[in-house]
């Protein structure tokens, strides 16, 4: 049965527990970073951060400061373009697991030429894949495939203290998503679910996607 995530950003406090838990589970080292005047740190996804919480702060016309949080990760697309593009160069470099719907970058991704690896990264509508300069592999969220295969929850979902994330069978998650949407709309009339039909990681946003991140949504 395909799996899905709901990421209800109206609940996210940007504690970044998910971001750190993802690093810890995958044994990824710290990055040297600089103070850039933002809590978004490191500034972007990279081979050591398969998930980052993006911060978007702005002042509305009414003079109200709005601070939106967006825990960014691979959407495990229903029809992943990254897999199509990789297949043209090195079959098996990127695969989609039929059972769970997880999209994985395999060891074979190191065999992609730099140009092909770049093409895979650039094909992604959500700007997710990054290339590890050391291993030459494509790096991205793997849905905690080892955990999920063993019947466990992805570590980011398990760690989230606010219930922002829900993981489970796609049908069940879709039902929860609709319920959460109806609830969110009471406070945020513009609340919506992003690209629900096309992805396994469904974001609930309180307002237009531009107020979160350039690649928050595609459709």
């Amino acid at each position, binding site marked *: 049965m395909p799996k899905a995530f709901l990421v209800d950003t109206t609940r996210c406090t940007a504690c970044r*527990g998910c971001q750190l838990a993802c690093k810890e589970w995958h044994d990824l080292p710290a990055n040297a970073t600089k103070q850039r005047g933002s809590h978004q740190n490191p500034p972007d996804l990279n081979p050591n951060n398969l998930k980052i919480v993006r911060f978007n702060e702005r002042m509305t016309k009414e003079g109200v400061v709005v601070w939106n949080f967006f825990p960014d990760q691979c959407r495990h697309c229903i029809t992943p373009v990254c897999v199509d593009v990789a297949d043209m160069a090195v079959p098996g470099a990127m695969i989609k697991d039929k059972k769970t719907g997880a999209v*994985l970058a395999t060891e074979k991704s190191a065999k992609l030429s730099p140009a092909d690896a770049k093409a895979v990264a650039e094909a992604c509508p959500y700007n997710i894949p990054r290339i590890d300069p050391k291993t030459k592999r494509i790096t991205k969220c793997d849905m905690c495939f080892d955990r999920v295969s063993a019947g466990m929850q992805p570590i980011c979902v398990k*760690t989230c203290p606010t219930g922002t994330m829900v993981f489970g069978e796609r049908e069940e998650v879709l039902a929860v998503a609709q319920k959460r949407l109806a609830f969110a709309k009471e406070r945020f009339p513009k609340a919506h679910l992003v690209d629900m039909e096309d992805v396994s990681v469904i974001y609930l946003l309180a307002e237009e996607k531009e107020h979160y991140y350039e690649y928050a949504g595609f459709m």
Partner: protein
Amino acid sequence: MNTTRRSFLKLMGVSAVGLSLGQLGFDLAEAQAYASKLKIEGAKEVGSVCPFCSVCCQIIAYVRNGKLVSTEGDPDFPVNEGALCAKGAALFSMYTNPHRLTKPLYRAPFSDKWVEKDWDWTLNQIARRVKDTRDKDMVLKNEKGQTVNRVDTLFMMGTSHASNEECAVIHQAIRSLGMVQMDHQARV
């Protein structure tokens, strides 16, 4: 990625790209290879507590051959129900961090160097200094001649990780020394 490429893909529609080999599930072996390395497989689960704040989230420490291999929230603990914040989620890195202190360090007055010491020496030093300070500064009576039996030059800093019972015992021990200055910082 530039806007042109995105608009192009959008125009085509993601699903119109079609199913390639990798999407049809011909890669079972690859996927299995990927899943075969669960790092906590066969590790012993040991209950522990996050040391960072007063919430005291419980964690499961996964131990194999006497070595910590992973940590995560304990779903059966009612306070955190498996969840952790960024600090608690990073406990394993605290353990593996090369900057973590594993032995007492001592810096002598006016010295600019830290020296490694063993626990016996350290605990003796602490006991010695508490005793010396108490002997020197014990005030038996105040200006009005009332019995006070207090030491004003020692201070007790508590921890919100202590339970009621532990607090009661610590309190009595500290009071018995004549210490009256006590505080506690809810975050430590």
